[in-house]
């Protein structure tokens, strides 16, 4: 049984590691430091942690001021507020200046669960992807969260790192994490499944079930949405019968759109999108919600079968 970890636990611990080695790391939160786990950093380095209260716009623009003075600023809150509530501050004060600000948002997607649609960010990747030079990472598990935070810290410019609320199983043998280079977790020539974040585990399960039916599915962990690994996507388009994209996010503007943009311009192929389609989320247990929004391994399996049939 794979180890289950909260990505945000890993995030908080990683911040402490970074804080020890780099005095210019500063962390901000908007009254959610216990949920996002930035509170771990706050206890260790109180002089470099600033709670901004329930005021995300102020937090983002203040991060810009800190960054203009040479700080690398990690800014955290829930994904829905980090991207939607303070979008203009992220655009004008952070990204326009290409500052070293790393927005690490937790509670992304519908697996937020019972809190319901107001707290379920399903459009955050889109909101960040439309900004020039914004780097985006959606780590798939605990260990990859640490890799993502380190990569963001050591790479110049603005980052958006998307984390979930619930525990996720650790995926073994992924290989080394490299920013902008997708991980091919399973080889296969019949169909490609491109996914990210918490859906990676489901994609692997689907691939195993497909294999029982004699269908060889390639599984891609597209942990970096920007810069996008177009080479891996094009290889899927060239050497398989089609692509299934699966994301806990709206199908508009996120990973599915990114994949479509690449294949439609270079090597048109069939792309089936599994994601949230013209709906908001709602209250419910994560597993039930994933079922309701057709985001299970079973749904991936069905879509992949459609492509090869």
């Amino acid at each position, binding site marked *: 049984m794979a180890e289950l970890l909260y990505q945000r636990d890993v995030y908080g611990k990683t911040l402490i590691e970074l804080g020890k080695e780099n005095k210019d790391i500063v962390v901000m939160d908007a009254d959610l430091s216990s949920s996002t786990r930035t509170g771990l950093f706050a206890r260790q380095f109180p002089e470099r942690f600033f709670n901004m209260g329930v005021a995300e716009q102020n937090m*983002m623009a*203040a991060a810009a001021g800190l960054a203009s*003075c*040479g700080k690398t600023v990690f800014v955290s809150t829930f994904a829905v507020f980090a991207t939607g509530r303070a979008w203009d501050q992220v655009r004008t*004060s952070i990204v326009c200046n290409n500052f070293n600000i790393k927005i690490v948002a937790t509670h992304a997607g519908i697996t937020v669960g019972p809190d319901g649609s107001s707290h379920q960010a399903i459009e955050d990747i889109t909101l960040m992807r439309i900004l020039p030079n914004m780097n985006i990472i959606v780590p798939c598990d605990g260990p990859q969260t640490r890799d993502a935070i380190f990569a963001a810290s050591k790479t110049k410019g603005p980052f958006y790192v998307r984390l979930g609320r619930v525990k996720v199983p650790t995926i073994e043998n992924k290989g080394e994490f490299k920013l902008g280079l997708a991980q091919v977790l399973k080889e296969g020539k019949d169909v490609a499944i491109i996914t990210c974040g918490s859906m990676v585990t489901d994609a692997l399960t689907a691939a195993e079930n497909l294999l029982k039916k004699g269908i060889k599915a390639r599984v891609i962990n597209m942990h970096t949405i920007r810069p996008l690994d177009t080479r891996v996507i094009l290889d899927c388009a060239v050497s398989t019968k089609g692509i299934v994209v699966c994301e806990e996010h709206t199908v508009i503007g996120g990973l599915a759109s990114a994949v479509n943009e690449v294949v439609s311009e270079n090597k048109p192929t069939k792309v089936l999108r599994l994601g949230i389609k013209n709906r908001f989320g709602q209250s419910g247990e994560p597993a039930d919600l994933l079922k309701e929004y057709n985001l299970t391994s079973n749904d991936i399996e069905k879509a992949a079968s459609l492509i090869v049939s």
Partner: protein
Amino acid sequence: MKIDYSDKQIKELEDKAKKIRRLIILMLAKACSGHPGGSLSSADLITALFFNVLRHNPKDPSWPDRDRFHMSKGHCCPLWYAVLSELGYFPQEKIFTLRQMGSMLQGHPDRRTPGVEVASGSLGQGLSVCLGMSLASRIDKRDYRVYCLMGDGETQEGNIWEAAMAISHYKCDNICAILDYNGYQIDGKTSEVMNLEPVVGKWQAFGWHTIEINGHNMKEILQAYQEAESTKAKPSIIIAHTIKGKGVSFMENVVDFHGRAPTQEEAEIALKELE
């Protein structure tokens, strides 16, 4: 403690402000677009700041101990550019490239301009930016001061009040906000579009030390900066009563000149008035 400034000092600053106003008119007339009204109303405040108060080095814009200035009301950047060029941050002839494609002088502030620390233009964010700069000084144990120019209409943005609350909470006494209270915004008088009063009471309620002055009186301006600097444990805001379009008779209190550049003919008349 009020420092007395010599008549000569005051006269020099007044002359400098006049020159800055001329540069504003010249560059806007050449650009054929831009915002004269608010640039002129805050010209005395910013001239006094850059030529008498601010610790900075035009030859080394990234000197770590420099005082920070941020123009939250970014549309008044012609004023900023005039001042920066006069101080030698970049060659003065560059002002005639304002708003042209490829220019280092964008229509709203951008970091490609030497001396500009953070982009602005979308209103209401600058005070938060200054909060960040102040927190950085605390971490780095540097004693620089942070100045933020805000428009009056701009304070209708909610973000301003988030920043006002946080700056007071963190007792950032090295922050001095400057409110250019000229009473006009694009759609008309602030009192009619969205009333700001009671301005002094609002800032005091948020925990700020308020200094109310005539924003065109050099002596009052200099004394206000001095009072702000000597105020400890809380941030200061200079609420400067000003006249939109100040210095050019036909622009004064004329809403149209919030965001319209003078024509060649208008510019010539304006420059004569500013001689």
